[in-house]
């Protein structure tokens, strides 16, 4: 095991932070405090965390409609995220963006995105910029299986391959795109096969195994920094909740969900940590700390002011 216990504990903490954040978000949503569609990341935590464990603050990510996990894994602040979900002036986007538009460019988060494939178009630009500016920054582009059927996926990978950009394409194949089963709408079983269209390396990884994700992305990031160009990684995973909060999930059966719950990425890492010598106490205290941080984040968000209505005209243009 290359990863130290400390690093594994940090991953555990981040994954749990995502899980618990999403649980809070669902509660807030069900209380009617969150508007619009909200997509939670529960079940997929190992992907965001395993990937971002390879990144520095200055590296970039682009995210999706299901973006809370990516944001937390890249270092996003719970307070600002929660405040954004509640549409508050103190939120990441001053309440203008909501769940699908959380961004923190200062730490390389180039935005969640409401358009399937939207971020896939943007990511190679960040990688190009890094390359042109001569830095060793890399970009990780997160997207779902469904997004790989959008034309922009193809254009983006082709461009990145031709320009040999420092970018990692990370597909989270959770078997569904909204209500459509991947095998109904996706012509290949493994998205990774699509790398052949761009003559780039690809890898399939167990998306519920944070260490496996970490290692695959590590190889890809190293390749990227080494002027080796893009890599396509497919992480096989599953979302436990519906597509959006409130989804009746008529398109899948409960057994499937239960099966995947048994492969919980967080429990799995917990077990590994125990093997590595972590105590149940340690893990419990991590959880408690997160719960406390989340209490604070929710308090912060709830007690924060709404934006002034005049602010609708701010932030459209740089003056």
């Amino acid at each position, binding site marked *: 095991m290359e990863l130290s216990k400390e690093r594994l504990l940090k991953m555990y903490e981040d994954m749990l932070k995502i899980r618990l954040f999403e649980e809070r978000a669902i509660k807030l949503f069900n209380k009617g405090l969150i*508007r619009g569609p909200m997509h939670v990341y529960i079940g997929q935590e190992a992907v965001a965390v395993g990937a971002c464990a390879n990144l520095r603050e200055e590296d970039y990510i682009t995210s999706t409609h299901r973006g809370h996990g990516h944001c937390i894994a890249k270092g996003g602040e719970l307070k600002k995220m929660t405040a954004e979900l509640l549409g508050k002036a103190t939120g990441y986007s001053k*309440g*203008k963006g909501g769940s699908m*538009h959380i961004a923190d460019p200062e730490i390389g988060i180039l935005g969640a995105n409401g358009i399937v494939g939207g971020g896939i178009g943007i990511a190679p630009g960040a990688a190009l910029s890094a390359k042109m500016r001569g830095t060793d920054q890399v970009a990780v582009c997160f997207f779902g299986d469904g997004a790989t059927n959008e*034309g922009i996926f193809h254009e983006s990978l082709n461009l990145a391959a031709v320009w040999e950009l420092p970018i990692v394409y990370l597909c989270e194949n959770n078997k569904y795109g909204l209500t459509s089963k991947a095998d109904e709408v996706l012509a290949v079983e493994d998205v990774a096969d699509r790398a052949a269209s761009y003559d780039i390396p690809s890898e399939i990884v167990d998306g519920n195994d944070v260490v496996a994700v970490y290692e695959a992305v590590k190889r890809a990031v190293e390749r990227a920094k080494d002027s080796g160009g893009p890599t396509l990684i497919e992480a096989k995973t599953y979302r436990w909740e519906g597509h959006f909060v409130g989804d009746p999930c008529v398109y899948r059966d409960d057994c499937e969900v239960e099966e995947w719950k048994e492969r919980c990425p967080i429990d799995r890492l917990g077990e590994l940590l125990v093997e590595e010598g972590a105590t149940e106490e340690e893990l419990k205290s991590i959880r408690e700390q997160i719960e406390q941080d989340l209490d604070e984040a929710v308090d912060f968000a709830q007690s924060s002011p709404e*934006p002034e209505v005049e602010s*609708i005209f701010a932030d459209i243009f740089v003056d």
Partner: protein
Amino acid sequence: MRELSVREALREAMREEMYRDENVFVMGEDITEHGGIYGVTQGLYDEFGGERIRITPISEAVIIGSALGAAMTGMRPIAELMYIDFTTVAMDQIVNQAAKMRFMSGGKVEVPLVIRTQGGGGRGSAAQHSQSLEAWFMHVPGLKVVMPSTPYDAKGLLKTAIRDDNPVLFVEHKMAYNFTGEVPEEEYLIPFGEADIKREGSDVTVIANSYMLPRALEAAEDMVKEEGLSVEVIDPLTLEPFDEETIVKSVAKTGRLVVVHEAVKRCGFGAEIAAKIMESEAFYYLDAPLERVAGMEAPVPYNEKLEMHGMPNTDKIKAAIKRSCYVK
């Protein structure tokens, strides 16, 4: 008479047309078991099966492209784009292909294609899921643009759209699916290009459609009570073809015109109506400048207060009516 919701009325229109003509079929994302993201196609998959209620990949460009190809070769597809905001990934196929195909071929092809989509704000869906983009499509010769508000209109217009041999963009509103209203059991169609006077009046004309129509009607009600003003409310129903005559006649009578739309004011369809009015005899009847009540010139914000601030509402319509009538 029985009451239906807009959602039910739309579904019934498709169902009836699918029974009437076996070439009619529906394609789009999430329209099968789930019945579409706003439930419009619910039940149709069980009734007609996956051949005629076709789930597609998340590939809007080829959804429209393949619907067009099918329409050119004997089928009558209804292609659903989940949000009008997603027309942006299918614009070539809508604008350069479907709209112009007949013209470019010198009239050799027919394109009986309906694109159903929905737009508008009000649900906190934020900047990429709340737009009102109908004016873009009015700017493209070769497309018809339909935007109903009531269940009755939704059903009758959708049936007309399905029978039309031309590409029709059919724009629903996410907040209007639950609107209810009377819908007869008997079959009926609503012709394109005939505006509907939803309420007669003599002091001022208000044009409003889609989600804005009920707001305009409410404003009209209030104006009688509050100011003794008699407001005529007209729903154009179809923006292309556009029934200029009914509106000019109304303005000839009232001398005042307020146009309401949710889309961003700049270059929205209110602008076109302003120009049309100027270019018509109605210009000479106008006793006050035209008023536009429209979406603010900003992306749609997430926060509810901000979002509502940016959208037209009953109070803003009332204020515009009063300005138009020089009532303080």
